[in-house]
């Protein structure tokens, strides 16, 4: 046991050499709550609390869970040319967005691989909030600064913001104890910018990374702990518990949401990942358009695998069809709500039909799996 072979959240590659490890504004809360703290994307964050990953996962599927996601990066784009810049740097089209809408998008490199995936909040004409992955924040900011043009400014406000995700079917009921119905964004992927929650000014969006209904709340970094305490206290009678990175990962995996560094990389782009809904090849030229078009027809595509044999498939394991190496997994786990082992992998489109029988090499042992439709879980 001392020679723990893979601890999936202690990934040294995500820890940038030379940069000091940071704490989120909620770090002391995680320690006080007994969280198991690990380095993740340059931050010290809880992988789980004493309740454990499974209980935290189930709380989000059946009641509610609260996550510290303050490590996410926040970039603000302002100026008359902000929209043109976003349309040029990102694959989605933001032209018809209304104030208060949120839109997901990959950000491609020239080759049609992925720099990051992110969400864009339209605050008003000429003012957008862009939320990016923590591990990519500096890379994204540098990439975007390099490609900025016209009258548009970019500002990194990450260190001034605390962000928590309240996720699960009871999320709305919990928030309604603190704010009015009209204060909550009604549609999935919409937000309200200035809502006072227990005296704390918040931006509330109906977004999340769990496949469950829920909200994400942004506030000033210094008010993060008070917001965290208020939400936990308000929600505890409705089953709300704090949740760590472990449950965040198993939840997004069940919902088949891609994770940068796994399903998306510099090399593997959004077309292979099946994110066509967020790629607008018909809009004006944008970074990566030619690269994306050059990838068609695709040579590999993202599939879901369900383990039919015994074992648990993890990331970076080879997938075989007979003796033929057919691809590699990108994520895999025991899915707590579904009660079975699942994985995502890249296979040739010819091998990707639902029902295809494959085997995954799990540390030298061939584990039978079959291709299943994505997402694994849909509420």
């Amino acid at each position, binding site marked *: *046991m*001392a*020679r*723990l*072979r*893979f*601890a*999936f*959240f202690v990934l040294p590659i995500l820890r940038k050499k030379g940069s000091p490890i940071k704490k989120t504004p909620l770090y002391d809360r995680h320690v006080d709550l007994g969280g*198991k703290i690990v380095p993740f994307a340059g931050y010290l964050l809880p*992988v*789980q609390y004493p309740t*454990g*990953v*499974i*209980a935290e996962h189930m709380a989000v599927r059946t009641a509610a869970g609260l996550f510290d996601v303050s490590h996410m990066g926040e970039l603000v784009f302002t100026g008359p040319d902000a929209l043109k810049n976003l349309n040029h740097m990102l694959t989605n089209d933001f032209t018809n967005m209304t104030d208060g809408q949120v839109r997901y998008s990959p950000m491609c490199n020239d080759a049609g691989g992925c720099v990051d995936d992110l969400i864009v909040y339209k605050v008003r004409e000429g003012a957008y909030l862009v939320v990016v992955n923590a591990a990519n924040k500096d890379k994204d900011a540098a990439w975007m600064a390099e490609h900025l043009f016209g009258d548009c400014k970019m500002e990194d406000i990450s260190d001034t913001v605390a962000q928590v995700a309240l996720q699960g079917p009871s999320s709305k009921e919990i928030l309604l104890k603190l704010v009015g119905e009209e204060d909550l964004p009604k549609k999935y992927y919409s937000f309200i910018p200035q809502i006072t929650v227990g005296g704390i000014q918040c931006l509330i969006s109906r977004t999340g990374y769990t496949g469950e209904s829920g909200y994400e709340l942004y506030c000033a970094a210094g008010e993060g702990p008070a917001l965290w305490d208020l939400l936990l206290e308000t929600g505890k009678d409705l089953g709300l518990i704090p949740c760590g990175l*472990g449950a965040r*990962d*198993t939840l997004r995996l069940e919902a088949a949401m891609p994770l940068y560094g796994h399903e998306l990389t510099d090399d593997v782009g959004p077309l292979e990942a099946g994110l066509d809904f967020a790629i607008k090849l018909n809009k004006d030229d944008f970074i990566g358009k030619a690269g994306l078009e050059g990838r068609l027809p695709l040579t590999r595509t993202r599939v879901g695998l369900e383990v039919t044999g*015994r*074992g*648990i498939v*993890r990331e970076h394991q080879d997938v075989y069809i007979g003796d033929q190496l057919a691809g590699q997994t990108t994520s895999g*786990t*025991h899915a*707590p709500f579904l009660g079975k*082992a699942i994985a995502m992998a890249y296979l040739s489109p010819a091998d990707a039909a639902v029902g295809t029988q494959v085997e995954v090499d799990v*540390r030298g042992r061939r584990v039978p799996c079959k291709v299943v439709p994505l997402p694994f879980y849909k509420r």
Partner: protein
Amino acid sequence: MNTPDHLRYTKSHEWILFADDGTAKVGLTDHAQDALGDLVFVNLPQVGDALTCGEALGDVESVKAVSDVYSPVTGTVKAVNEDLLDTPEAINSDPYGAWLVEVENITDQEELLDAAAYQDHCAQED
């Protein structure tokens, strides 16, 4: 952390309980199950397999981690706890009841710690 006095422990966080007939049961310690988190899969040897002390006898997986389980003794597998194949979470809820294997024909053993020495060892690792 629970470390019953009647057991012996390895530095790699297995426990062993010797019976009067020369056989022994092996499991994972409370510290081990806590460090691993919710266990969801165990891979055990088969009855009759030869075990060598200090070498892996199988592995266990939690939601987030994989770990080998090392045999504290050299011997042969007399029995495996097949109930764990369906209920690996029993290792979390009852680590000292949820034995993994029973070993017979024991000819060698690793350096084993008593409860106090094992607690000291865990404290040093943390």
